[in-house]
């Protein structure tokens, strides 16, 4: 990718979430999942969304991706309306690609074919070209040797990395990650973080990253947005002014510790509220 292309990608992908409210209606009881939530995410920003489990973070992601409708408010991508009250469900498209909590590589396709899938179905590349580009991008991510393997044959770390490659091959404006490293041990996680940062430094794609791991949020993000427990609203925003590229030595530095502490009190308070409310988590 040339520098000119990179700078254009850097200027797109601004998400603006304005007064979004989502009311679920399971069995006739209204549940307020997201309440009048507003957030501006700049183009090329790594925005970490932090909050206790089941607080409604994923509801926000689902509205952006076009999986669920919103009830009030609007969401814009680079000024264009994705969804609002008149059209509550955004259309799904490869400009906003999701990486799922439990991984959603197609188990019946090899890693190479999984990565080639997006350009192939959109018709932007021929099948052979898509395969070639997929192999190239997998090799770049250190997965060249396993391109012909099925997801069931590789480690979860490799699978997750391939899933991010599958998203990036489409040149998305926004990468939406829903607690992608939740089930991983701390050591694998730190390797995954570095790989993600390395990919981010190359592409500068806007990242909307949901997590409940504070250290992850501070290590990866430009900002960590702490959400309240259900109904979901922005509680505080922690700005992470640590220069990139970052590596894992940062984890033991003073400035990192200070930022984690700053966010911790806010998150702890919400976690306690969530626990006491004892409500069942929403999807």
């Amino acid at each position: 990718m040339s520098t000119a292309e990179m700078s254009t990608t850097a200027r797109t992908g601004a998400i603006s979430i304005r007064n979004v409210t989502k009311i679920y209606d399971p069995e006739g009881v209204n549940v307020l999942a997201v309440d009048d939530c507003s957030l501006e995410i700049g183009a090329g920003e790594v925005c970490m969304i932090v909050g206790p489990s089941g607080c409604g973070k994923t509801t926000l992601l689902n509205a952006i991706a076009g999986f669920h409708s919103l009830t009030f408010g609007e969401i814009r991508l680079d000024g264009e309306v994705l969804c609002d009250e008149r059209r509550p469900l955004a259309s799904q498209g490869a400009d906003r690609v999701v990486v799922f909590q439990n991984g959603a590589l197609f188990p019946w396709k090899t890693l190479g074919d999984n990565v080639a899938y997006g350009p192939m179905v959109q018709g932007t590349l021929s099948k052979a070209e898509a395969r070639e580009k997929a192999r190239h991008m997998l090799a770049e991510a250190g997965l060249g040797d396993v391109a012909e393997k099925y997801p069931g044959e590789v480690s979860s770390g490799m699978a997750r990395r391939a899933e991010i490659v599958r998203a990036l091959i489409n040149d998305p404006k926004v990468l939406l990650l829903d607690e992608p490293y939740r089930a991983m041990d701390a050591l694998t996680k730190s390797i995954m973080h570095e790989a993600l940062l390395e990919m981010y430094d190359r592409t500068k794609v806007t990242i909307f990253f949901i997590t409940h791991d504070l250290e992850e949020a501070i290590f990866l993000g430009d900002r960590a947005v702490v959400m309240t427990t259900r109904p979901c609203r922005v509680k505080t925003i922690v700005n992470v002014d640590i220069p990139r590229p970052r590596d894992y030595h940062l984890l033991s530095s003073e400035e990192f510790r200070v930022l984690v502490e700053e966010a911790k009190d806010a998150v702890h308070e919400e976690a306690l509220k969530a626990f006491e409310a004892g409500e069942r988590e929403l999807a």
Partner: protein
Amino acid sequence: MTGSPVESVSGRRSEPPRGMALFAYRAGRMVRTTGPYLTVLGIGAWLLLWWLFSEVWYLPRFEKMPGPVAVLSDLFARDPFQGISIFTDEYYEHIWVSCRRILFAFCIATGVGVPLGLCMGWSVQFRHYTFPILETLRPIPILAWVPLSILMFRGFEAPVIFLATLASLFVTTLNTMLGVQSIDESYFRAAGCLGSNRWQIFRHVVVPGALPFIFTGLQISIGVAWFSLVAAEMVSGDWGLGYLIVDAYMNNVTVPMVIGMITLGFVGWGTSVLVRIAGNRMMQWRTRALALEGR
């Protein structure tokens, strides 16, 4: 074997065995486990009991049952006492006729049942139209369809194939539908946000995602096809293993009856093995993942 790339100095393999070496490895592993010996032992014990009950002790209820010695000596006789052995042409004619009917029935049932099940699993509207009908027809025993099938079709062949098809159609359709419903929602979402249209989702998510259930269904369905085929052949037929059994009974020759039953068992087992092999070939992704888990 010196200089073989498969085994290193320490005797540990440096790379997976291939070809003959793989065959030798598998055979060696099989001989070292207890499984095959237990199988031989189990079959031996079963044959022994059968022999004792029917040919040594003549237990009540077993007096009329031909024993293993009588059956096996007739089965392998050049000039069988009761008419059927592996040296008579009729024996193979019966097997061939039944297999041909199964082939037709299974192909029709799969060709109709799989697409039907895929649509039912995928489209809620289509399911609303069709599922109640399927659920009403499914519990009707195949034997209850016999009179109707004789009225509907002429000759021996068509009604029998119709009955076998019907039985396996229900199984295939239902399993395929459940297969589609079992696919994780996140695969649909992933396909959607990667820019697929509805047809592409059908082709790349619905069909491959349902395959494991489809093949489980096909294994059951070929078994069910054999059940209903034999039932149908007993009622109407001129050839076939089911006919052989009931014809032997009518003519009061019991050995061919038992030969027919045993043959049915083996042929049925063989066909379901074929379906399983086809399934494993089509689902390399699953076979390989299961192999890594040691299954």
